């Protein structure tokens, strides 16, 4: 074997595929670096959330020791006597959020379908732009508009016919003073619709044309193509947008507290006033003096966190179930 007179420069030497590259060379290739950086970012989210939960846990220790599990099923909220129970707030939070979803999801998905499938591209872009602007309206303004505009409309034009037709149902009974679970749900629905519309529209636009063409070739109507072919393809993204919207609804403070009536009691009727966890924290935290009081409010935040955990767990399981039926693409 003849030996080479000069060795070629290292960069031109093709390493044997079985030889391991050194760490530095791996970093230069870029894959490892990208992996590490993105991994660190993903990890930081878990770190931040754990830190948050830790702070909440530590700061609520007084209240947890004072009340234990009773906190979750008693209804008294008395800062003067230092007695605290979270049940009315949990009820209010769950009711308003789900009602808001009920109102927002059909409208949001409907609008998204229109904007993605039917509207001419220019119009669709302009309209979407404007709808996304709704997300920027400060919560306080939604609250004020709720008081000045929405409540009178509900009181004068929406609730009377509602009570005339469906008033026998327990959820629509009782005197209506404007502030109520229902009003809060309406305001929340308006606030979360932009998220559903915007993200659903983008996901629908990302569906490959082949999906549509396949069904159109079979002679389906436009609606059938959309509903049976495009939407199922995009459904995971759309459900994701719904959960994003739900998350915002659960945590919304200012607008809700201005239209819900702020009464810590449980009523079956949607037309009666109520309270949510986020609203009571917003109302009372800045002024709460006394360590047990503050601790109780922080425990409420912890409870909301737990509620969010449960709802998200259910959502995840649902999605996993759907995934198994989905064909890989």
């Amino acid at each position: 074997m003849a030996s080479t007179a000069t060795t070629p420069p290292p960069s031109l030497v093709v390493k044997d595929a079985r030889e391991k590259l050194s760490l530095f060379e791996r970093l230069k290739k870029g894959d490892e670096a990208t992996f590490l950086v993105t991994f660190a970012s993903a990890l930081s989210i878990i770190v931040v959330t754990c830190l948050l939960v830790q702070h909440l846990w530590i700061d609520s220790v007084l209240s947890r020791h004072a009340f234990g599990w009773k906190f979750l099923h008693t209804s008294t909220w008395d800062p003067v006597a230092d007695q605290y129970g979270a049940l009315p707030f949990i009820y209010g939070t769950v009711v308003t959020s789900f009602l808001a979803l009920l109102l927002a999801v059909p409208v949001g998905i409907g609008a998204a379908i229109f904007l993605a499938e039917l509207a001419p591209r220019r119009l669709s872009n302009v309209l979407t732009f404007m709808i996304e602007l709704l997300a920027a309206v400060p919560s306080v303004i939604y609250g004020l508009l709720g008081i000045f505009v929405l409540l009178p409309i509900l009181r004068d034009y929406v609730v009377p016919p509602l009570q005339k037709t469906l008033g026998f149902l327990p959820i629509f009974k009782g005197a209506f003073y404007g502030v109520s679970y229902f009003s809060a749900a309406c305001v929340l629905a308006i606030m979360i619709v932009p998220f559903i519309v915007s993200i659903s529209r983008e996901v629908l636009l990302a569906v490959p044309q082949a999906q549509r063409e396949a069904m159109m070739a079979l002679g389906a109507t436009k609606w059938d193509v959309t509903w049976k072919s495009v939407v199922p393809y995009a459904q995971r993204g759309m459900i994701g947008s719904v959960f994003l919207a739900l998350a915002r609804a659960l945590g919304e403070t200012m607008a809700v507290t201005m239209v819900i009536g702020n009464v810590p009691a449980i009523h079956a009727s949607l037309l009666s006033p109520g309270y949510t966890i986020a609203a009571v924290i917003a109302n009372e935290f800045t002024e709460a003096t006394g360590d047990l009081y503050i601790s109780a409010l922080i425990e409420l935040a912890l409870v909301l966190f737990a509620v969010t955990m449960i709802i998200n767990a259910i959502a995840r399981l649902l999605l996993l179930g759907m995934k198994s039926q989905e064909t890989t693409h």
Partner: protein
Amino acid sequence: MIRRLMLCAALTASAAFPLCAQQVNITGAGSTFAAPLYNAWANEYAKLHPGTQINYQSIGSGGGIRQISSGTVDFGGTDSPMNDKLLAEAKQKLGTDILHFPVALGGVVPIHNIPGVSKDLNFTGAALAGIYLGKITKWNDPEIAKANPGVNLPGNNIVVCHRSDSSGTTFIWADFLSKASADWKNKVGAAPSLNWPVGIGGKGNEGVAGFVRQTPNSIGYVELIYAVQNKMTYGQVQNSAGKFIKADLNSVTAAAAGAVKAMPADFRVSITGAPGATAYPVSSFTWMLVPRDMKDKTKGATLKAFLIWGMTEGQKFAQPLSYAPLPRPVVEKELAAIKTLHY
């Protein structure tokens, strides 16, 4: 060589800079009620002493107490004085006492909206307590009717509205109700945030006023300033001398004057239900909370000067903003107490 000269010049200039522009930034927070007054004072004081920035933010009386106790602000504002427990907690966290200095006076007024009734109603303390306890449920209840002879009160249900957010205004209102009704004192008590027996919660003065304006047969309470600035009609309240007084700057100042004799050394006094024929019973001081010791001596000196200025020159800003100015004897007492600050 040139570069070195320029560096020296720059260093000297930067060293001299603090000497020529003495910038002092002071942060305060607390009572929403007193915010317009503190802001007016800060603005005026900055004009008189350029370089002094006094930044006051309204986060509520409780917020003011919390932040001054944690040392995150230099002074606090509150409409409800700190009780002994809170003072002790603060001393433990901060390492020094917190002193109360009254800076102005205000009142809380009842507002109502009864279809067919255009007159401002008279309310006794018992009537208000009964309404807010849920014991008095109709407008034509004898307790209300006997104070308003000649007014045709309907038999409608009273819709009660109170503050949902913690507030000094609620404290003043509840303090008055506690003095007017032993039942209220036992069942509910007085604090910025309460376990209300009945009623809808409105957020802020705006929330309560908006609700009452739009809801027939409703009653609520708001700060006097708020009612005056928004040109709202409000009712009269019976004072300890038995007279029905309409809240205004004079009647509120009269309430303070009546309380001067019994004023404790630390100025923590409630003047609801104060004696005096013309005194408005639902009145209160608003206090500035100041620590006795301050690490930053320059800040401390500026704060002290600001406080003294507020007691004296600053009082003339009170009336245009619908605050009642402090009675002279109270100011005298405060100026003496300010000398006990350790800066």
